[in-house]
């Protein structure tokens, strides 16, 4: 009885305070993603996730991504241009990519880190394909599955003459022949954005070099160099993926 009374009083007091003091616009966001975008919804593990920024303007990072120094090598600062033809992007481009290619299914956002990193938290909308998978051989089932996932089609027997012609056409830039190798056809390659832990992380650059070594077109690859470190510094939403969604490390 006493508890109920106290509860009632506290609710009334809070309600009164609310009436007097709280007339804020619920939709107002002080910390937007960009000057035109307050938030963005993506799908993670079949569920919608809203990407937004932490609204507390006094918030600071206090986890491992606040760390400034790691042994180099191997954790060395990566260049802006990771490979010829590959575009380096920032957060605003990622938002646009999420809103267009990711939503339409024409693109994939790839967390190229090993599962032990991925499972601690990832950028919403990402799938985990560790860099080791892209660096596998053409006959490795995990590599084949990953290359098919990004839009590659494994080719059967291709005649010597066909390949010869394709190489000529590729040199001339005709018929999209430059998107074919002896073993893969990347005519319908998806647009990819690969990322890892940040400017000190070599995992996504390695994944990109792996993709290129299989003949994946460079113009379909973007590198988010800022990675998890910049994502977190900006207070952007991070999700923990379902464990079974992580791809096993080879």
């Amino acid at each position, binding site marked *: 009885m006493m508890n109920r009374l106290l*509860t009632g009083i506290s*609710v009334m007091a*809070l*309600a*009164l*305070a*609310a*009436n007097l003091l*709280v007339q*804020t616009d*619920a*939709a*107002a*966001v*002080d910390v937007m993603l960009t000057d035109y975008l*307050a*938030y963005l919804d993506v799908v993670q593990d079949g*569920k*919608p*996730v*809203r*990407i*937004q*920024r*932490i*609204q*507390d303007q006094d*918030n600071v990072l*206090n*986890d*491992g*991504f606040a*760390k400034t120094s*790691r*042994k180099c090598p*191997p*954790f060395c600062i990566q260049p802006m241009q990771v490979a010829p033809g590959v575009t380096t992007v920032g957060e605003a481009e990622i938002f646009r990519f999420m809103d267009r290619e990711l939503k339409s299914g024409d693109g994939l956002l790839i967390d190229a*880190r*090993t599962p*032990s*990193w991925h499972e*601690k*938290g990832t950028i*919403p909308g990402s799938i985990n394909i560790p860099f*080791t998978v892209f660096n596998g051989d053409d006959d490795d089932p995990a590599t084949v599955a990953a290359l098919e996932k990004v839009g590659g089609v494994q080719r059967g027997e291709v005649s010597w003459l066909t390949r010869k012609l394709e190489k000529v056409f590729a040199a001339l830039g005709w018929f999209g022949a430059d998107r074919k190798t002896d073993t893969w056809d990347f005519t319908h390659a998806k647009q990819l954005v690969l990322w890892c832990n940040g400017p000190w992380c*070599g*995992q996504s650059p390695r994944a990109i070099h792996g993709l290129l070594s299989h003949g994946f077109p460079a113009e379909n690859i973007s590198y988010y160099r800022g990675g998890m470190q910049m994502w*977190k510094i900006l207070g952007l*939403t*991070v*999700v*923990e993926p379902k464990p079974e969604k992580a791809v096993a*490390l080879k």
Partner: protein
Amino acid sequence: MLTLLLAVFAGGCPVTCAAASDDYLKALENEANDTGARTDAAQGDAHKAGGVQDRQLINPGLDFDAFETELKTRHAGTWFLYNRLSEPQRKAVFGVYQNDNTTSAVRDEIVRQLSPG
């Protein structure tokens, strides 16, 4: 040894590269453990993780169920009031949270929903 030399002289480096790759993976795993950092995510482990630890913030990006779990487990006081709301009122609170993950914004909306009229 002979294999190693042959491999190096053959222009490739299957053995040395594999070793380097193993070292890199080992360093990555060690760093993953050191960096630790379960992040500011939906699974409620953020206290230990160092992501959103502050009670003034609710972990961002949660769906409705996870949002309720988060309130229940980390913000008992707010949950106490929230628990008295009807389903549509709860959805309204969730809508506010989606735009502003500060606990104060969520509390204000709860109180607004509770207030008569």
